[in-house]
């Protein structure tokens, strides 16, 4: 056999039709002899098939008539502004926000500031202010955990647990109560061995579902947030994106389970 050593790279090339035809048989033999690689190849192939299936319908959808008009050179009137989140979800947030603001007689929802932006901004502000504190970062420390959680749950009206983030390297420092657009919000502060701090911000707000990332342009802390079933949570920190995402995912899963969401 003159077979060269194949690698995972060849799996992709083969899948994409980029493997030279004369190597095809050799490659198949290699796959057959490497069950693990074969399984990989099959999974990637199945994923591609799944994606193709999921997207196939788009080709058959009727085209918006404005497209043909643009191509024929017609000036098409300005369309609505692009909303950088699900347009439907944004519409729902705007509607809920406007109504909520009206009923409460508080105009704290300025135009363009949807509930998720507002929560993310408040969470970032809280993090910026309190995570810098050494001695007074929290009102109640982790050594008094039960009291902390009972107190914050009672004040915010949401069932609050303290996510166990030990697997991500973070230990609870403690928490505090904060104002959030006239409502109480809870902030839990965590710290890792390298003294990096993150905070988990929770408030009973946001009826629409949304999730996303909110980052300062200047490299400050970013927030990953969820709004769901009247429960809003933002995880804030200056960690590398992937690490923050991991921590946030873990925190949300535990918080949601604790609050009986989903």
């Amino acid at each position, binding site marked *: 056999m003159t077979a060269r050593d194949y690698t995972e790279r060849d799996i992709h090339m083969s899948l994409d039709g980029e493997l030279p035809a004369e190597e095809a048989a050799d490659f198949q033999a290699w796959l057959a002899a490497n069950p693990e690689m074969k399984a990989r190849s099959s999974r990637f192939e199945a994923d591609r098939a799944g994606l193709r299936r*999921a997207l196939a319908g788009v080709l058959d959808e009727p085209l918006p008539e404005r*497209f043909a008009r643009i191509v024929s050179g017609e000036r098409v009137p300005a369309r609505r502004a692009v909303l950088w*989140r*699900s*347009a439907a979800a944004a519409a729902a947030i705007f509607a809920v926000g406007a109504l909520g603001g009206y009923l409460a007689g508080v105009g704290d929802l300025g135009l363009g500031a949807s509930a998720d932006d507002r929560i993310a901004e408040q969470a970032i502000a809280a993090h910026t202010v309190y995570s810098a504190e050494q001695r007074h970062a929290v009102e109640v420390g982790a050594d008094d955990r039960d009291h902390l959680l009972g107190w914050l749950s009672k004040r915010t009206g949401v069932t609050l647990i303290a996510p166990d983030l030990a697997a991500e390297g973070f230990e609870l420092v403690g928490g505090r109560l904060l104002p959030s657009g006239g409502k109480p919000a809870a902030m839990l502060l965590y710290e890792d061995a390298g003294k990096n701090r993150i905070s988990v911000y929770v408030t009973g707000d946001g009826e629409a*579902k949304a*999730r996303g990332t909110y980052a300062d342009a200047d490299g400050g802390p970013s927030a990953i947030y969820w709004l769901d079933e009247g429960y809003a949570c933002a995880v804030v920190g200056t960690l590398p994106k992937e690490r923050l*995402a991991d921590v946030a995912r873990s925190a949300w899963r535990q918080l949601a389970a604790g609050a009986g969401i989903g």
Partner: protein
Amino acid sequence: MKDRKAAILAEIPRLRRYARALLHDADAADDLVQDCLERALLRLDNWQTGESPRRWLFTIMHHLFVDQMRKSRRRSEVVMLTLDDSEALSSPATQTETIASREIVDALQAVSPDRRAALLMVGIEGFSYAEAANILGIPAGTLMSRIARGREELRGLLDDASRRRMIRVVER
């Protein structure tokens, strides 16, 4: 000129599919297509005779997508998390979307934009490595590693999702 316009029209369904896969949200995707068409019309003269309309249009679209990603990084809606169905934004692009389809397109949104574009160009739109690298303006080696990493990332996200589902089933 007429031929060119007809050629552009014929590419719209594919442009839409690509945009939808990149952005998921149907309206945002159509906005991207519209931007692409408008820019293409303005630059009709730059279209070299013999150049494939598909490649030309996808290149324009890609530049617009990169611009958008750059702008949106500020307040990024580059959603990087795929949770399960109940936590996902409910904005089905089509009524007939199955849960599996939604899950995979949702997961795709969590793949980094560079990798997502590379994956789609080759895996869905059927461009060769050489063509896709040309459209994306990157060396072929970079394209290949983006495809490989993109596939890994997507698979990992789908594995996570199914693990979570299993945990849920056990909890019930």
